[in-house]
């Protein structure tokens, strides 16, 4: 029994392969002679990031160089990827500060909730995306690394100024 093949009735008699071929060749030749130059030479030329770009995290510091974080625990609470590790500590004056603050950039989904929820505007997602490391451990950023980064931070969407003006 022959295999049942569905045959589509196409009006092929009205279409010319030769003409289609020649017009295709003309099109490719046009592009060959005059290519649309869209490529950016990446490492030398970089794409301008949006002000709301959410990338590598940054911990902001106060005037004394200490992290602004008060170890309230909101960011590990809200984090959907569960990538923030926070161990709170308290000094003699009763000020809370993070003993351990680590973000696993591999687990992070860069939703930016940590920045939105932070009451002290300490943790931020940044306008930065080139993070490569030689080991997986290198992607766990500790407090020192988070505070020492200098890239610009994300400007969150403001309901009062929806277009960012």
């Amino acid at each position, binding site marked *: 029994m022959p295999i049942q093949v569905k045959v589509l*009735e*196409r*009006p*092929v*008699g*009205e*279409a*010319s*392969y*030769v*003409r*289609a*071929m020649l017009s*295709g*060749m003309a*099109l*490719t*030749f046009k*592009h*060959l002679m005059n*290519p*649309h*130059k*869209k*490529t950016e*030479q990446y490492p030398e030329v970089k794409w301008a990031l949006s002000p709301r770009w959410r990338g590598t995290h940054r911990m902001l510091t106060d005037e004394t160089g200490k992290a602004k974080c008060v170890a309230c625990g909101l960011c590990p609470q809200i984090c959907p990827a569960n990538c923030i590790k926070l161990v709170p500590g308290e000094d003699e004056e009763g000020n809370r500060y993070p003993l351990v603050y680590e973000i696993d950039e591999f687990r992070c989904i860069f939703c930016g909730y940590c920045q939105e929820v932070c009451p002290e505007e300490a943790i931020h997602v940044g306008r930065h995306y080139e993070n490569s490391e030689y080991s997986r451990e290198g992607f766990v950023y500790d407090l020192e690394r988070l505070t020492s980064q200098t890239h610009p931070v994300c400007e969150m969407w403001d309901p009062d100024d929806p277009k960012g003006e």
Partner: protein
Amino acid sequence: MIHLATLAQGQIYSQFYDKLVPVTGVPWLLFTILKMLVVFTVIMVGVAMLTLAERKISAWIQDRIGPNRTGYGGLLQPAADGLKNIMKEETYPDAANMKLFILAPMLSFIPALITFAVIPFASPLSTKWGLVEMSVANLPIGFLYILAIASLGVYGVVLAGWSSNNKYSLLGGLRSSAQMVSYEISMGMAAVAVLLLSGNVSLQAIVSQQQAMGWNIFPLLIGFFIFCVAAFAETNRLPFDLPEAESELIAGYHTEYSAMKFSMFFIAEYSNMVTASALMVTLFFGGWDIPGTQWDNIPPWTVLKFLITGAVFFGKLLSFIFVFMWVRWTLPRFRYDQLMSLGWKFMLPLALCYIVITGGAVLGLDMLGVSRSVQWFGIAPFWAALGVLNLVLAALVFVVLDRGRIISPAYSRLSARQVAHLRAISAGRSLVAPQGD
């Protein structure tokens, strides 16, 4: 056949062979070795650069930039690729037939390189030891040699597909054998028309005939068309790249190959392309002939003449290679049934008919005494008469070939009536009963 003896080309032909003594003895041996080395080097370096050219041309066609990091404008990219391929790990599949697996790349690579040996790539050179022919081996049966060696290339592909013990490879090998066998016939048949016109199978004689009468492209237009399509199929280039068909067969016959063995297949493909282009130039575009002048066709055979004709030959060759690449990045692959129907139902009958027509026309024109030598405005009447015949034939051929008779594009605009018709068919077949009463 009496007329063939009195051809105008005979004058140039005799100047070529009778008055100057070819180089013999030890100088002949040394010159041959030198030519071998030069041709081998030029082809290998050329093939390397062609891979870059292919990538650059494809990039420009697709509005990209292409490799531009290694060396100025990516010029060292082939060197980097070669180095990478040599350093890479060779993988051997457990289930492969090891002897044939190793033999296949060689069988693919060697015929691709040695076909170039008989192609005359420049005017001969007069030295104090005698006249040096500018082809590695000036065989009197050059064309038959090419047909014989070119058909060996399929063994490499088929053996690679079979010995890999992989179903995709095997399918690629099978397709390749079917395709090459189908198109080789029409390729040979198309070239018979050239032989009818030149009365000789030596490639040098074919070039001389074109120098005397004008290039074969016009009087043998249909022959060129058949030859060109068959050459695309023989070199496994798109739109005939069914043996490797990435989308269906992974990489076809070289799926299991890695490192330098894979590279061998690549070099073979590009060398095949070079040889096919060289063959088209030699058979239809006057070989190393410079159009519009007789300066290059007559002695003295100086170094300057050698260099200029060589440059002209390689210029023609490169333009054909460009066409190969241009077509590759434009046309989609044929379906298997389209490939077979084009090969067997169209090309072969057309080639057979064309031999009869050309043979009849050549005989008739010779009997009528139409001159083969250049007469009015640098045009030979014989050449013009055959050319007009071919133009008429070409018009007929493209009408028959086109519009769904042999090949068709997959899509054309539907008229409103056709849409209604198709809807009616699908409504009748639908599993769900139509709504309403």
